[in-house]
């Protein structure tokens, strides 16, 4: 469990760093991006292997649980948008299993707006915002991602198949959301404009073939 949490924390941290590196002067650094993707991959492998070990007790909780893990990464993305420090506010001190009460208690304590509660409101404006609102999970978001399948790697279903069912509940959503968000970035050359509208990101074919961060795609979707 600890291993899972740690792995998840590191994955989310890595995503934050990758996103943040876009903002830096001088553009994306290929070496840094590669290193971050390596860490993400290691974390993913660690997470999945830890998940496999803890497989049985969690299967029955999966339906109730599935909305919850999606909240964690977006919350972290929100924290990033607010320039929250990278310390104790990292994801999921909350356990993966269903515990309604503690989560509700923690929500106001956290301070950051809960995406699930405000997602309806923000959905309408989410496309016009830059930043991380693409990470807001919602049913509508999932539909959008399915429509944009042309941007998705065909590896998505393949990689997810062997994973345990409960892993489907957490990371595929994160993967799809991240992929939608980052597909434009990943298919750009080092100079993806930070303010690229999402429409561009949905059509990676427009971009030059120099998709230096596609390694990231493979890592991300493999969640």
């Amino acid at each position, binding site marked *: 469990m600890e291993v899972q949490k*740690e792995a998840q924390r*590191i994955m989310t*941290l890595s995503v934050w*760093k990758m996103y943040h590196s876009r903002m830096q*002067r*001088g*553009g994306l*650094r*290929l*070496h*840094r991006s*590669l*290193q971050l993707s*390596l*860490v993400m991959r*290691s*974390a993913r492998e*660690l997470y999945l292997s830890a998940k496999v070990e803890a497989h049985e007790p969690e299967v029955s909780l999966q339906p109730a649980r599935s909305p919850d893990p999606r909240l964690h990464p977006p919350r972290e993305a929100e924290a990033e948008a607010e320039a929250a420090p*990278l310390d104790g506010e990292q994801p999921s001190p909350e356990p993966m299993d269903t515990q309604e009460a503690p989560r509700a208690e923690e929500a106001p304590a956290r301070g950051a707006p809960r995406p699930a509660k405000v997602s309806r409101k923000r959905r309408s404006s989410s496309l016009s915002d830059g930043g991380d609102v693409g990470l807001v999970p919602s049913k509508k978001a999932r539909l959008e991602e399915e429509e944009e399948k042309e941007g998705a790697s065909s590896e998505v279903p393949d990689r997810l198949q062997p994973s345990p069912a409960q892993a489907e509940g957490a990371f595929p959503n994160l993967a799809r959301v991240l992929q939608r968000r980052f597909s434009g970035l990943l298919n750009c*050359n*080092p*100079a993806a*404009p930070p303010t690229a509208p999402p429409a561009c990101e949905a059509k990676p074919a427009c971009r030059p073939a*120099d*998709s*230096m*961060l*596609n*390694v990231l*795609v*493979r890592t991300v979707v493999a969640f």
Partner: protein
Amino acid sequence: MFPKFSLRSMFHGAGGGNDIQWCFSQVKGAVDDDVAEADIISTVEFNHSGELLATGDKGGRVVIFQQEQENKIQSHSRGEYNVYSTFQSHEPEFDYLKSLEIEEKINKIRWLPQKNAAQFLLSTNDKTIKLWKISERDKRPEGYNLKEEDGRYRDPTTVTTLRVPVFRPMDLMVEASPRRIFANAHTYHINSISINSDYETYLSADDLRINLWHLEITDRSFNIVDIKPANMEELTEVITAAEFHPNSCNTFVYSSSKGTIRLCDMRASALCDRHSKLFEEPEDPSNRSFFSEIISSISDVKFSHSGRYMMTRDYLSVKIWDLNMENRPVETYQVHEYLRSKLCSLYENDCIFDKFECCWNGCDSVVMTGSYNNFFRMFDRNTKRDITLEASRENNKPRTVLKPRKVCASGKRKKDEISVDSLDFNKKILHTAWHPKENIIAVATTNNLYIFQDKVN
């Protein structure tokens, strides 16, 4: 006078261990703690004689210090380094095609050997390399017939006699002028430049490619290494550093993010994608961790002056390789092994991505590299002793002998030891340089340059 001192100290096994006592000499840069980002030093390099010391900073500026020629018989120290020239080498640029801002930060400076009165150096940012000529002017012509001294033209009808203009001494003026600009050859960010021993060509390396230039020709360069995969999804490693062999003009090495070094021979083929030698040490399984891959990335590679060895720096260690042995280094020195258990925190605060450089002393007996808390480390290859010193303004009285520092990894902390948790990871020494002939070192903290030298009796 200088040769006598330096020969003696070198003869006595100029070591970083207990053989040498390092003394504070000078510190350059602002005193206040509020560091302007533009003043952050990004590269340090002595020229071939050691008389000049160049620094580059994040603001694109180059500052060159010159050593005073010491004439006093009873000098207790070698000449001081004073500012010789300051110029703006690179400006921030904007690539409109890619909507990419190009930082003006100077990534590397390399001096050319001196061929005439002027000095030449190459400086590079992420995309453009420039050849600078630094020349002195200490005379000016006076006594023109048609011009006044202030430059105004005289009415020719008022000229009644003629005189021959003569050169008269003037205050020394050091001029820096860009002689060549080598641009538009790198898609990715330049990490290294290295001048060939033929003194006619040099290489520049970015994340995926290495180009060969002629110093006189700016409109074309030859690509000699290209590791970009056809499908970028298959990218697994990047080039992190490259250097020409000091004696063999056909040989160069480049290091990778996977911890390997490839030696290439330009005689073998035009495109040196296939290495002549591959230097790689198998990973110690007991050290395998989450962050193993990224800490094995080599941040610097330097040939020894002799050309027999090369040194590599990864995040935790310095390794010396014999060019004749590819399967493992001949020497490994742990720089700050106590950080191995802190890698997760170092990942969080981005310190794990710091790129430390390393350098040899003039006779290849000692190597030096930086660490955190403004510590720097020296390893004596002969005595196998090592020492940790600190660059700090607290010890800034001239000829103050630096006290060795010690980091307590765990357990009971002894007096004068510093615990790992007390280390300041914002104070890092990434760039160091060693005088090619004497025991003088230049150590760059964030925005200060410290000069230390060995104690001269």
